[in-house]
Structure formats: C-alpha cells, structure tokens
C-alpha cells in the first residue's frame, strides 16, 4: 500500500530527499524555507544521514561542496538571498563538475525583500547564477507531490551529469499542504563516481586531481557545451494542459501554473480556446515544444509572479512569430507582498487581450 500523507511542499522535499538517498544536508534558516531544515533535522539522522545547521549559506554550500566531493549525496535548501550568497561556490562546483542539489524556495526580491511568495529568481537560477558562464539544471515543481518526485530526479540528474541541479519552488508551494504518495522513483543506472576524493587508500594510493581542466579553459567550455547539448536533447520535461485546439497558450510554472490551470478551465467554460504549457525543466527550456505548439496559436500569454523573466525565454523561443503578452507581478490581487495572481485575473487578461486584438 502506498504511503500517503498530507505534506507541505517543504516537507515533501524533505521526504523526497530521504527517498532519494540524500545522506547529508547543510543549510541555514530562512523563511519560507525553514520547514525543510526543521524536517530534516529530525528525519535525516534517523535515515542515517548527516544534518547540520551552518553559520551561513556560504558555509552551507561550502560544506555541500566538500561533502559531495566524497561522493555523498548532499543537498542544501535556501531562499532567494541565500541563493545569491551561494553563487561563488556553485560556480566552483560547475567548474569542478561536482554534483549537488540546491532547493530555492523563492521569496520576494530583490534585496532582503519579503518572505512571501514570488518568482523573482527565475533569471538567476536558469542562467547559472554566478560568474563564469556555466549552467545548472532547474526543476520547477508545482505541487507537493512533484516536490517529492522532482527532488529525487534532481539527485539523479546531478549524479548523471555531475552538475548542480536547482529545484525552484516558491513560498506558496512550500507552505501549502497536499496529499503526497511517498514513493521511491527509479530513473535508471548511473555512472560510477570514479572522481570522488576519500583519501588515497581507497584508490590504491593513486593520487588524482579533480582539476581535469586546469590550464585548459577552452577545453572546459567546449566539453560543457557538449554536455549542455546532451541535456537539452534528453532531459526536457513539461506538462501541456488542454492544448489540443488551443488558440491562446498560457505559459507559467510553479504556483502560478496552478492558477493558470484554473484560468484555462474558467476560460473554456466561457468558450475561449485556451491551453497551458508548463515547463517543468526551466533549464533546459522546452523551446522546441513551445515553438511547435504555438504554430496555430493566436496569442501567447506568459503569467509569472515577477516582472518579466520567463517571458524572455518565451520570446527567444518564438522569435516574434506569435504575439506574446505578459501578465506579471502587477496581476497580483494586492499591491503588497502578500498578493497572489488568481485565475479570474488571468481570464480577465485573456479577454482583454482578445478584445484588443479584435479592434
């Protein structure tokens, strides 16, 4: 019988990490992420893992780096300002090809911002985040169930491609409770971790440098480009909802995609042919999928709880072939940071868009 529980997104991430055989967690409290930290403080040691609350996010990600280097599945979780603090080490891990999983429960930014929900980290995490022109895989769950499943996928992808994988959620998903089937996911076999450093004894005394590309930066970027291409070919994930005859396509991820789904249903009741494309991997972005689906679309409406970050990738994918509209953070029902974009507002935007088009 399946183990079914009522879990918040943050707790689901904790459970998913344990199911995904995470053996070490280093983190620092920050609203709205703290439940992950609190959950793992209790549960991870029971599962034979190491838990430590560090002095700051920089130490947390440094310890993730050290721990991953020994071949241990390690993760950290933080929210937006913490992600910024971590970037230097994330860049180092990208250079040395060290796998890691970092959860970003996005809060309102920029600056210290507010602890309420937002999607203002999109550009930072999907474009790598730090210096040096690297990329990270970004997974965006939209429910507690997906939090539990995608964190397991994140560990698998991190080990498969030896890179950092972000799981980008937001305060709404992190703090809302839903039923979750706790299930261990199997994604296939993984390559041996022949690069780990655990002391010379474990390799028969052979010293090995992790600096595979020291003094060959061109080689590094050429290799990585090849890897990025492979990921783009194999790992794109998305969900399309009522797209069969859609003339207006909504593009949204995270909690907003749940609202957009509601908006699709509402609009369909009124006879509007609306569908939703929800990218699950924000990088690699489902560019070709969007291009194909939009071939018969009249309008694209990007809905996001930020000022126009996701829309850049959509514009890039469609290259001006279809008119693109944006319902950004101004679509929230309140002007303070507790505002949320509701389905009714999205439907209103669709109608307005259609009316303007008819004139």
């Amino acid at each position, binding site marked *: 019988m399946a183990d079914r529980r009522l879990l918040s997104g943050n707790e689901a991430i904790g459970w998913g990490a344990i199911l995904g055989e995470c053996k070490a967690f280093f983190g620092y409290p920050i609203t709205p992420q703290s439940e992950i930290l609190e959950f793992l403080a209790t549960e991870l040691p029971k599962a034979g893992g190491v838990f430590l609350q560090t002095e700051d996010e920089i130490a947390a990600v*440094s*310890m993730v780096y*050290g721990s991953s280097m020994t071949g241990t599945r390690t993760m950290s979780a933080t929210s937006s300002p913490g992600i910024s603090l971590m970037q230097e080490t994330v860049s180092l891990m990208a250079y040395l090809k060290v796998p890691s999983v970092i959860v970003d429960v996005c809060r309102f930014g920029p600056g210290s911002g507010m602890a309420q929900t937002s999607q203002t980290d999109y550009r930072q995490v999907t474009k790598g985040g730090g210096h040096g022109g690297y990329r990270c895989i970004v997974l965006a769950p939209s429910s507690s169930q997906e939090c539990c499943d995608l964190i397991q996928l994140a560990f698998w992808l991190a080990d498969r491609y030896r890179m950092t994988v972000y799981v980008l959620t937001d305060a709404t998903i992190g703090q809302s409770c839903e039923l979750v089937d706790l299930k261990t996911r199997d994604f296939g076999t993984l390559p041996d971790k022949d690069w780990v450093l*655990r002391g010379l004894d474990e390799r028969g005394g052979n010293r090995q440098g992790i600096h595979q590309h020291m003094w060959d930066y061109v080689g590094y970027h050429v290799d990585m480009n090849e890897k990025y291409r492979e990921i783009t070919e194999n790992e794109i994930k998305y969900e399309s909802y009522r797209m069969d005859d859609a003339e207006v396509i909504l593009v949204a991820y995270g909690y907003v995609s749940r609202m957009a789904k509601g908006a699709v249903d509402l609009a369909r009741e009124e006879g509007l042919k609306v569908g939703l494309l929800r990218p699950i991997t924000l990088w690699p972005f489902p560019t070709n999928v969007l291009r194909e689906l939009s071939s018969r679309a009249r309008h694209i409406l990007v809905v996001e709880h930020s000022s126009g970050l996701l829309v850049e990738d959509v514009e890039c994918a469609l290259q001006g072939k279809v008119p693109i509209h944006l319902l950004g953070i101004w679509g929230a029902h309140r002007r303070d940071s507790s505002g949320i974009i509701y389905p009714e507002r999205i439907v209103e935007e669709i109608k307005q868009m259609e009316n303007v088009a008819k004139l």
Partner: protein
Amino acid sequence: MGNGAIIKQQIVGKPKAVQLDFLPFKFCPGCHESLVWRALGEVIDELDIQGKAIACLDIGCSGILMVGLAVDGIHCLHGRSTAVAAGVKRVLPQAICFNIGGDGSLGAIGVGHVINVMMRSDPITTIFLNNSGYGMTGGQVAPTSLLGLRTTTTPEGRDVQSAGFPLHLSEIAATMKGTAYSSRVSVHTPANYQKARKAIKTAFLKQMDGVGYSLVEILCACPPNWGLSPLAANSFVEEKLIGEFPLGEFKNVDQIEYTVDPEINKVGRVKRG
C-alpha cells in the same frame, strides 16, 4: 672504523608526502611556506596518514600546496576551506581533514567560518600561515599586518585609525571551548622548525583522538612583500614578528569537558515525545 663497510644513509630528503614534479617553480626564495610544506610532509609520513588525509587548500600561496602535497586535495574558494573541511569531516569521520590558509583567507574573508568551526568543535586541523600580509595578490595589508608595516594598500604604514590592530587568531582559538589545541610556532630557525613540526603533529593527533578542533598558527617570512632579502626576512621574523605574535601553546587539552543541565533540556519550543 670497525669491520663493517661504510654506507651512506639518507637522513634528510624529500618526505614521501611531498611531490615536486608538478610545477616549473615553487615558492619565492626564502619563503617559509615551503618549510611548512616539508614539516607537513614529514608529519604525514611519520603518522602514516597519507592514505586517509584530505587537504582543503585555500586561495593564495597556501593553495599551491594543492599540487605539492601527495594527498587528496580539495581546491576551495577564498576563505571557505575551513567550512569545506568541516563538511568533509562530517560525512567522512575516518578521514584526516586539514585545511591550510593564509591570513587573508582565514583571518579576513573566512574568519567567520574559523570561529564557527571552533564553536562546533569540529575535529579538523587548521594550518594558519601568518605572513603579515597578502602574499599572492602582491603585499596588501592583512588583518595580521604589523602596525607601521608599509604595504601596497597602506603605503605610509599600517595605522590604527584606518586599519586597526593585528589579529591574534591563536589567542582567540584558546578562548573557545571547542578548541582542543591552539599554538603559534615559527620556522625561522632549526629549533623552531622542529617545534613547528611537533605542533603540527600534536594537532593531527588531537584530530585523530577526536578531541576537537586544532589550530596551528605558523609565522612565515614573505621576503618579496616585505621588500627584504631572504635572510633579512628571516631575521625580521625573529626581531619583529615574534614581538607582536608571541610563540607558544595557548591551549592543549586531551578532553573537552562539559555538562548539559537537564532542567534546560526540558525547555524549548519543541516538546518532548
């Protein structure tokens, strides 16, 4: 001589844990870091821990040992080697984890991690190279620079109004409960070199016995950035650096004793059961 043949027995050479064939150059002439390098190599050989040692090397001249020590080495970002070593030790308790950093790494940008590692009593060893300035970046003022020292960023000499007072990390370490061993040594004479070697060995033994955090601060000469010849820099350590940073053992305990009050243990947001 007696009846036996006379053979040559090597008494001093390159330690096994030191590898030289990696770079066309090493350190500047008269740099004390390579003496620390030798001492580390000798201690690793002596304790026979080459196979389970993991070195976390910071940015700066100390990072050159990344390729100079024949143990598993993790390249760390500026100031983060302490945190990385603590992370490694947490998941791999059987490893001998040590980090090497200079006064810029561990005294300035990463001093917070050092204090927190002392606080948590992580059983790792820190080799703190104090050369009174930033070496690799070319002689800027460091937290440990002597008052009055002319550096490229204090061209008239370090003054208290703008750059404050020198940092004494070993003394700070000694005040922390979680520290098992803290000492300051130098390598500028043969006798001091042997003391430094002994201090490094003691620090590793504290880690291997699981007592707690150990720190060895080593005063190093930096001839190019002091604008002195190797021998003059050597004398400068004796005459001036030791004056500001007295040598000695500041803490050496075999067990860190503590108690937890059961009354306090009943209080807190998380209820028992």
